[in-house]
């Protein structure tokens, strides 16, 4: 009888979920919800089989194995299914770019070399069709980052079911993004120089420019701050430890230089973004306790000689060296962000055990972004931002979501795309 009740309730939920208007954010959780019977992937390396996960008022209250008292709660029977913490996409363009090739829909790249005062959050478009396409794959949170220039601006972290940027934000102005000077420059073939990459003669100068900017801004911040200097003001968080410095750099030399740079300038929280050659500097990264947000593994080796699977196994190499690793998506096209679970899956295929691979897009990313107090794992006290999948969510065959919640609110898994799917499937059915 109870089973039947749950079954009916489940059907009702399904029906009601499909009747959600597209893009309409889910309403506030009013009743405790228990997900019963699923394999819970906690996100910290642990699994709880046959679990009972309870959340109330948007927060997880308990995750246990076996039975629990679920009376008075909405019970979701998830036997044979899997429950995961919402995946977190680091360094994304979500909500800033809609169609890559349409300039009018691109708000990611402001002009100027040192523009930390430029904030991504206020341009974040909650109504983006790209954003809604993330959720059916379990990507429920994202860092939205500016691009371009030397210091590109300030990012924020959002949840992906919101009416506007204010309620989307789960961490406002979390960090500042610095594009590290490249060690190589291209030959100016039009001036008769040989094409191809050669050492960048301006490298030291370009680093000095940033150092000078930092020194000047520190001096400014110690004084009476007059006249007002917006870029300098925006650097405050880096110096008082409330913001992180995300340095976008791939090469060995650059990574090492960036680490010493941060140290010399007393910047507490440094994150390496990219890190294609981080495997060459693992000792330093470990010793300085610097985390790395690696490029999506779905990239080609950096050169002809490199192992064909280097991008696939980079996470393992860093993980084995004791470095905190997450996956970032800045090197991929915007829409690819929804493949975040499969990026982690690929890392698992090339050496990391599955639950550790899961950390690359959950707890590790949360730690690196500084949101681990409320996101990244299925642990009591954290936001109920999670989803239920028919099977292993890191494998595309079985990443099939039945329900998802953000801060306890059940969210729509519909999108422009699912609507078109239904519409045209109907078309042929009726012909």
């Amino acid at each position, binding site marked *: 009888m109870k089973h039947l009740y749950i079954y009916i309730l489940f059907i009702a939920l399904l029906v009601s979920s499909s009747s959600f208007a597209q893009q309409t954010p889910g309403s506030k959780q009013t009743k405790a919800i228990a997900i019963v019977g699923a394999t819970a992937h906690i996100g910290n390396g642990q699994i709880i089989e046959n679990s009972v996960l309870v959340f109330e008022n948007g927060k997880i209250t308990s995750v246990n194995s076996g039975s629990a008292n679920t009376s008075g709660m909405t019970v979701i029977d998830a036997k044979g299914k899997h429950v995961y913490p919402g995946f977190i996409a680091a360094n994304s363009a979500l909500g800033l770019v*809609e*169609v*890559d*090739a*349409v300039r009018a829909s691109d708000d990611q790249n402001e002009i100027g070399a040192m523009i930390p005062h430029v904030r991504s959050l206020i341009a974040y478009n909650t109504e983006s*069709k*790209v954003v809604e396409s993330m959720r059916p794959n379990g990507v429920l949170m994202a860092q939205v980052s500016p691009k371009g220039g030397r210091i590109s601006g300030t990012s924020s972290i959002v949840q992906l079911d919101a009416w506007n940027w204010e309620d989307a934000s789960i961490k406002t102005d979390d960090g500042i993004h610095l594009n590290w000077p490249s*060690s*190589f420059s*291209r*030959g100016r073939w039009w001036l008769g120089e*040989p*094409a*191809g*990459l*050669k*050492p960048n003669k301006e490298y030291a100068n370009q680093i000095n420019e940033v150092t000078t900017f930092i020194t000047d801004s520190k001096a400014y911040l110690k004084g009476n701050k007059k006249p007002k200097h917006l870029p300098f003001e925006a650097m405050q968080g880096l110096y008082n430890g409330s913001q992180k410095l995300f340095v976008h750099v791939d090469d*060995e*030399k650059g990574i090492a230089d960036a680490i010493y740079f941060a140290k010399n300038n007393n910047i507490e929280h440094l994150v390496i973004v990219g890190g294609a050659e981080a495997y*060459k500097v693992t000792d330093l990264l470990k010793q300085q306790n610097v985390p790395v947000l690696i490029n999506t593994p*779905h*990239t*080609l*080796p950096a*050169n*002809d*000689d490199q*192992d*064909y*699977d280097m991008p696939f196994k980079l996470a393992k190499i860093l993980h084995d060296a004791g470095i905190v690793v997450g996956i970032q998506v800045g090197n991929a*096209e*915007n*829409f690819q962000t*929804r*493949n975040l679970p*499969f990026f982690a*899956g*690929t890392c*698992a*295929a*090339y050496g990391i055990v599955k639950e550790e691979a899961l950390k690359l897009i959950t707890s590790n990313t949360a730690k690196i972004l500084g949101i681990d107090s409320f996101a990244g794992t299925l642990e009591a006290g954290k936001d109920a931002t999670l989803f239920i999948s028919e099977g292993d969510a*890191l*494998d*595309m*065959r*079985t*990443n*099939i979501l039945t329900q998802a919640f953000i801060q306890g609110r059940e969210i729509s898994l519909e999108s*422009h*795309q*699912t609507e*078109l*799917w239904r519409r*045209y*499937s109907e078309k*042929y059915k009726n*012909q």
Partner: protein
Amino acid sequence: MLFCFMSGISLMAQDYFPKNDGVKAESHSYFAFTNATLHISPTETIENATLLIKDGKVIASGKKVTIPENTTTTNLEGKHIYPSFVDIYSTFGVKKPERASSSNSPQYDASREGYYWNDHIKPEQNAIESYAFDSKMASDIREAGFGVVNTHIADGIIRGTGSLIALSPNGTDASRILADRSAQYLSTSKSVASRQSYPTSLMGATALLRQVNYDADWYAKGLSETKDRSLEAFNKNKGLVQIMDAGSKMNDLRLDKVGDDVNTQYVIVGGGDEYELINEIKATNATFIIPINFPDAFDMEDPIMASTASLSDMREWNQKPINPSVLQKNGISFALTLHDLKKPSQFMPNLQKAIEYGLDETVALAALTTVPAGILGKSNEIGTLKVGSYANFLITSGKIFDKKTTVYENWVIGNKHEIVSMNTIDIRGDYELKVAETTYDLKIDGELSKLKSTVKTESRKLGSKISMTDDWMALTFSSVDTTKQDFVRLSAKIINAANLNGMAILPNGSETTFYAKKVEKDASKKSDDAKDDEDEDKSPDVKIFPITYPNEAYGFAEKPKQQTLLFKNATVWTNEAEGILKNTDVLVKDGKITKIGTNLSAGNATVIDATGKHITSGIIDEHSHIATSAVNESGQNSSAEVTIEDVVDSDDVNIYRNLAGGVTTIQILHGSANPIGGRSAIIKLKWGESAQNLIFDEAPKTIKFALGENVKQSNWGDYSRTRFPQTRMGVEQVYIDYFTRAKAYDALKKSGKPFRKDLELETLVEIMNNERFITCHSYVQSEINMLMSVADQFDFTINTFTHILEGYKVADKMKAHGVGASTFSDWWAYKYEVNDAIPYNAAILHNQGIVTAINSDDAEMSRRLNQESAKVVKYGGVSEEEAWKMVTLNPAKLLHIDNRVGSVKVGKDADMVLWSDHPMSIYSKAEKTLIEGTIYFDVDRDKQTRDAMKKEKNELTTMMLQAKNKGLKTKPVVKKEELHFHCDTL
């Protein structure tokens, strides 16, 4: 008799130039060079011989030469005479055309009138019209040993004729110009003088070269109603030798093939990398002109910089000097050239290096004399010192290619150019030098024309500089007191090399005398020297790394061979009615799948335990742009005449990476820059084979079409607003226009009337005859329907829509037309026209009964197509078995090669993959990838290769460091950039 006859001719020559600055004062005397070792040709040497010349020609050569009275005789006892060298790939004295000024829009039409429709076809150019003698350069080239060059205008695809110029120091062009239309030159590079877009690619250039030939044939028959000075010149130049600048091993092969298509055997200017593909090079039967520009070592002192050097670049440094000797060993006829060298003075050291690396000296000399002369059909005039030849010769102190040999004089058409005086006293050696009570050790070495000195005292080396002019030696060296910047200066008239004495000026300004006495080195040192001499005839003591196939990272030491293999106990995805078979064996023999069953007996097969593993047929990527040197010919809105088969790149490491992802066959498509694109190439990824061997045998003919934003240049910026079409409306009209023209062409052809062979229209006719299959790049439903409707009008069928991201909207119409689909699993949002792209597309198309494939269009994604097929399970719930066919059997069907590949079936090609796990699982890896029974990828071999490469790079790094320490020139490491093509790569 001959002698009398020859002199008779020159006596009879009649002057016709007036003379107003004096009386007639020409000398027609003889010059005789006696007692020389005379190298009449590379293979004919006479000791104690005499060379007799007069009026710029050889009158007699040999042992028994009668010397007339009016002869200046030079005794060349102990010296050698060689024919001067000939460079037939030169731009000597020819002015480079001026670069066309830039503009704010592309230029599609020709700038010229009355010439060919393409500005880059300039057979009417004659080098002689842009030529002016360049004395300085002539002198530099002569000093490198050359006497004659064939110069040309190195500009344009067809570059017109060259001129044979003698580099004589005296006289005028009247005597220097030996021939003015001496060869026709061709290349694949456009003229800088015109901005006309076409061709934008190598395959456009090769197609254009063919078309010009067809057009010229037609023009020659008098069928053109208008005048075309280019085609007239081209026809006029047809009888000349055709010299094609290919510039690399791969282009050598590509352009030789173009030559075959137009019944022309080009003489090919190579790239110096022919050793990497020597069998294929040999099979061209072409004669080559080979540059000898050997790269300097990289400066590897900075380990971080050093780590960016690629194995192939490092190997190139190690291996390139063997190129001439490899050509020789394979019996390939070649000439050498100064081309590609920064300075002519680099030539001789590089050639000596090539000889050190195994090039035979006789072959080297032939490559500089008789071979180039023969190419131009001038064997009787240049390249030897036979009677009647031009008197172009070198006088040397010894064998021409010996490092110790001095070239004294280079005579060109009887004019002497002295490089080093034969009377120069050779003061090279060791001396005991005494100046003002101090004794120094003085060592003089270097070339006679450029001496070097070392001055030491009490084993301390002092800075010094020596020079010698007109037998006067000047030597300056720093004083022993290093705290001061002052010098001792010596000057002496040299009479005898054994004793040098003269005046010395000391740092304090006082004058004194100095004395230097030649000393013999002690015995032990002498034997070292002797040993050095012996070594010169042997192969170099440097290690030369073996060539691999291809000669780069992950190449095979030996090309892999077909094997007989038995896979035991696998889960086999047959893609046939049998479905997925568990615990099954597969036997592979002679490149085919021969048995599928349980408990098969191995016989002589190698057994591979596949327990717990999966076997599938190889993945087929319907839409790829790897393994090609070009993707788009965007110079015109139709480029049906071009073909990717012309530009397949067998060296692309992405072939290997694809194999590691289980891919065995790909269709390399032309890009989407124009509505009618180019013909495709279907290849098998046989890593290590030549481009020609990659091409799928019996593959059907295919071509790429494209619709939408790319063809209307929507995302190309404001620069590109002038090419029709700029809207989807225009795209339809392009098709209707071209197919209407093709129809008319076909009718004319069939009528039996004369017609101009048109490669582009021939291709379109093939389409209308359903002999060539279209894969059309497409996005939105309107354009998809439009193209099907155009095809219906002209009564043919579109074979495949690729991308086809709105296919789900028109699946019913596609079904009715009979077209297949090859789509992305989940791509969208990258441009406006993919706004309605949905990942459920493949599922809907499949459910409507359309043959549906999942493709990559991307070098990275193509190595994970197994994962992409799994997305069709996720989005739309297609069964795993059917989804798997979307990357194997279905693309095989779309390419019309499913009789050979696409399933695990007895009788089909053994193109198979052994997977570690369920092939569509994200956790699965390809462990072995076979093509026709040959294992092209194996995870274990991959691991071994990584280790071997690491070792080789380490050794090469050490060798480069040693080179730097020896004082050899190095260059900074240049990091190689990989090019990755997509549809819209221009």
